[in-house]
């Protein structure tokens, strides 16, 4: 149990550390066989468990000794007695043992720590190595993947397919014996081939370019040559004009017209084309006659028309500039009044296209109807103005004033087409914006916007766009109607001049409608206005039946015989002779009677108003009105002559002796007179 200080010979170096091991430094440090007291070496030989037991034992001994000392002290022994000293010495020895043990324990601890530390160090080194290696591995992997991803530029080049390559490429490039096996070589070979092909093609391209340049130059030269021919051709054209006129093939004129026609607005163009086509189709029978029934020409300012079709960018710039100017000016002076502005806007809205179309329609008797067609640009409608020129001088018929009036000549060409309002429904909205209430105010200036005019220009306002088919289908009908209208009006004009002289012109073909002797005669034929007419008492039934319109023409005829005076109010529809004139009668003889009060006068009215087939005479039925008037006179004769019969006769001599042959003077419940004339027997009977 005592300290076994084993002296060991330690040839090696002494460990000197910060710890507490006591080492005796030998006198000769460098000497090999110095005696050192190395507790560490000693430590390795001791067993910790034994040391622990020793420690416990020592503590117990110490405790026992202490207890003995205590006993001794308490037993009254003197301090410093031998027993106590002995025990004290033993305690000190034990203390030293304890101290050694403590030292050993500390040394063990330190050793353990050192060992751990070393092991840790070793582990750290290894760990570091591991990490280094891992990093390197990762790096290498990245490099590998980068290498793998590398796209060589050569892959972007489109190469011909392998089969093609092997077929086309010459052997020294394709080297099939090598390339078939080796992919890399194959690719290289293909690239080579590609390069060679491209070089070849580049050569070809350069050559083609050069050729093209040469050809261009050649073309230019030829063009110059051609343009030098132009003046020569012009001269030839000029020289040929007289020849053209001689042969009546006005090519030049037609060309010029076509040139101008290009600037016409679409509806007028359609109208021109259709009119020209119709004129050609129906006009000439012989190529040498120039008498076309229909000819069309363009008049107006071509330059203005060209100006209209210029692109609007310039005008927009102008506008913005002028706006800026205007604003500046407004601060300085007053703006023009609202009325003037509105007026300008109206004028702008109602603007006509500078080009207009003039169509001349010839009738068989040589009179010509001139139609001037205008296009209103903002309103998109066509209007027409007319003029009549006749071969004979038309004068002397006062009542005929309205017949050829250009304002009303074309009224109601088709039923209820008055031409007073614009047929385009969108115009209503445009008018509202500028304060125009009716178009009728401007009609005399701008022309009449009849519906048939719109149709001739291909404008139909239930669908959009100018349609040629519409124009074509209407052209023939409208032209025929126009001709018919002109002829009817001219015929009426002539008839009126006779009627005003109290002569009823009856042609030879219509003589059979009337007996040889007609005593009643027309004494007056005057025109009336709509106002005057509607104020007459005996026409109210016509007004109520809706057979009167403001566009109709109204006349008053007075037929007289003896003391009897028959007033006939006549309504002539503008579409005469398609529509029969309507007569209303009032008789002044022994009182006043009218068709309303007396059945016989009503029968006379129906005799005159209803039998169109008999009264219209030979085609085209232009004798209708005069025949009606003559029939009226005949009926009055019959009436007056038979009337005197019916009375009792107690009044004295009859004013009108019976000259007409009648079988019966009264028939039926209303006792009507015989107004129907039978030819050739010459007697009157009832219908």
């Amino acid at each position, binding site marked *: 149990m005592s300290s076994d200080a084993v002296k060991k010979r330690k040839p090696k170096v002494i460990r000197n550390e910060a710890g507490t091991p006591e080492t005796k430094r030998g006198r000769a440090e460098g000497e090999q066989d110095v005696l050192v007291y190395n507790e560490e070496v000693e430590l390795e030989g001791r067993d910790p468990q034994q040391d622990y037991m020793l420690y416990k034992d020592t503590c117990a001994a110490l405790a026992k000794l202490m207890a003995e000392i205590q006993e001794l002290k308490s037993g009254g022994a003197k301090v410093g007695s031998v027993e106590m000293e002995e025990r004290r010495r033993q305690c000190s020895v034990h203390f030293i043992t304890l101290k050694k043990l403590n030292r050993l324990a500390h040394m063990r601890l330190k050793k353990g720590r050192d060992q751990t530390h070393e092991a840790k160090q070793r582990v750290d080194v290894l760990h570091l190595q591991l990490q280094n290696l891992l990093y390197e591995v990762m790096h290498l992997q990245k490099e590998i993947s980068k290498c793998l991803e590398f796209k060589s530029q050569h892959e972007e080049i489109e190469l011909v397919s392998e089969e093609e390559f092997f077929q086309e490429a010459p052997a020294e490039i394709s080297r099939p014996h090598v390339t078939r096996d080796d992919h890399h070589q194959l690719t290289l070979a293909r690239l080579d081939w590609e390069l060679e092909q491209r070089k070849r093609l580049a050569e070809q391209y350069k050559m083609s370019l050069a050729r093209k340049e040469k050809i261009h130059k050649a073309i230019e030269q030829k063009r110059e040559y051609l343009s030098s021919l132009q003046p020569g051709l012009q001269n030839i054209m000029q020289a040929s004009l007289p020849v053209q006129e001689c042969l009546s093939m006005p090519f030049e004129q037609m060309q010029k017209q076509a040139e101008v026609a290009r600037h016409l607005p679409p509806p007028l163009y359609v109208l021109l084309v259709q009119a020209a086509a119709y004129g050609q189709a129906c006009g000439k029978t012989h190529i040498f006659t120039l008498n076309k029934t229909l000819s069309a020409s363009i008049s107006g300012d071509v330059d203005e028309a060209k100006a209209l079709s210029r692109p609007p960018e310039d005008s927009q710039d102008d506008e913005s500039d002028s706006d800026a100017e205007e604003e500046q000016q407004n601060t300085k002076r007053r703006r023009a009044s609202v009325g003037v502005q509105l007026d300008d806007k109206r004028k702008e809205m109602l603007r006509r296209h500078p080009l207009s179309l003039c169509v001349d329609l010839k009738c068989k008797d040589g009179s010509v109807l001139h139609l001037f067609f205008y296009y209103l640009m903002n309103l998109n409608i066509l209007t027409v103005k007319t003029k009549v020129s006749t071969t004979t001088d038309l004068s002397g018929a006062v009542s005929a004033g309205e017949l050829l009036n250009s304002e009303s000549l074309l009224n109601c060409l088709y039923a209820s087409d008055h031409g007073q309002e614009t047929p385009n429904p969108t115009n209503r909205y445009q008018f509202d914006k500028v304060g125009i209430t009716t178009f009728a105010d401007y009609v005399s200036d701008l022309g009449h916007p009849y519906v048939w005019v719109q149709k001739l220009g291909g404008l139909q306002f239930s669908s959009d766009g100018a349609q040629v088919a519409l124009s074509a289908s209407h052209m023939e009908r409208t032209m025929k109607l126009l001709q018919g209208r002109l002829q009817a009006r001219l015929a009426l004009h002539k008839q009126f001049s006779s009627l005003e002289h109290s002569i009823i012109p009856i042609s030879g073909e219509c003589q059979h409608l009337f007996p040889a002797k007609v005593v009643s005669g027309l004494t007056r034929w005057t025109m009336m206005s709509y106002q005057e007419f509607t104020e007459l008492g005996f026409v109210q039934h016509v007004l109520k039946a809706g057979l009167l319109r403001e566009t109709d023409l109204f006349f008053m005829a007075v037929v007289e015989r003896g003391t009897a005076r028959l007033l006939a109010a006549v309504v002539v529809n503008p579409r005469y002779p398609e529509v029969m004139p309507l007569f209303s009668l009032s008789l002044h003889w022994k009182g006043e009677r009218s068709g309303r009060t007396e059945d016989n006068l009503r029968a006379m009215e129906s005799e005159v*108003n209803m039998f169109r087939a008999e009264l219209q005479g030979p085609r085209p039925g232009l004798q209708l009105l005069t025949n009606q008037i003559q029939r009226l006179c005949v009926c009055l004769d019959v009436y007056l002559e038979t009337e005197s019969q019916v009375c009792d006769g107690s009044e004295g001599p009859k004013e009108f002796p019976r000259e007409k042959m009648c079988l*019966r003077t009264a028939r039926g419940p209303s006792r009507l007179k015989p107004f129907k004339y039978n030819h050739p027997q010459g007697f009157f009977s009832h219908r």
Partner: protein
Amino acid sequence: MGPVELLHMSVFSQSFSPCGRFLAAGNNYGEIAVFSLSAALSPDASQASQKPILNFTAHDGPVFSLLSTDTHLLSAGNGEISAWSWAELIKKSTKAAWTRKPSYETSLEIPEINAMIINPKDNSLIVGGGDNNIHIMDMETGIFKSVLKGHTDYIHCLCFKEREEEILSGGEDGAVRIWDSRTNRPVHCIEVFKYEECARPQFGKWISCLATDSDWMLCGGGPSLSLWHLRSMSPTSVFPLPGCQREAVFYQDLIMSVGEGPHVSHCLHGGTVKAQIPCTPSSLNTLALNLKNTEHRVMTVGGSSHQIDVFTNFSYRAFSLSF
């Protein structure tokens, strides 16, 4: 039918169907139009129900007379009589059942037939017209069995007195002749224009309307409309109506007559004019009362217009049917 034709149309005759629900009217163009009264009088009547359900041309000349038997409608055209079955007409079939002509002497002008009446006793049809004679036709056989001659001018109107079985006829010659239908002999002849109270020489002497009610007779035309007592053969009252009357009827205690002038005159037996109801046509030719049907008890008048006025209450015009 254009507006001008309508303007010049005159309605000359009317007749109600046996059931009383339809009205047939004839005009001067020879057309017959059938109107449905039940449609026109129903509460939801519209403009369309005042138009005819059937309109066809029956004859060449004007249809001056229409007459309904129990089954047929008889119409008189230019010298011919046609019969149409009412049942067929209602079904809109326009095929005539038969057409017969009395024998006429003159051939230059075909005489019109102005009046037709039925003698219920021996089922015969009596017609009078432009040839100054009265023809009697047996309805069953269709043979014209007798001719009554006596008038010197054409016959305007006919009337039949059931009790005495006498035929009365009025003509353009101004005479009202009374015939015995059994013997076909003339019994009396009254020349109305010779009586001062009735005569109106400024108009003329013709008699255009006749009506009888037991012992009473109405006649008028050129002379004023007058009420005669037949036993005494004298006029008892004269009606101061301005125009010439063309048709007059007895209705309950009133006398209704139409003629020149746009009104229906209501008169009392005493000779006073009680009322003059205005109508659309400017002069009237025919007046008809629908007494067969109590539901549609109306009076209709037609004349110088294409419209036929309908009176539901006889004091004012309710509406007009239109051709």
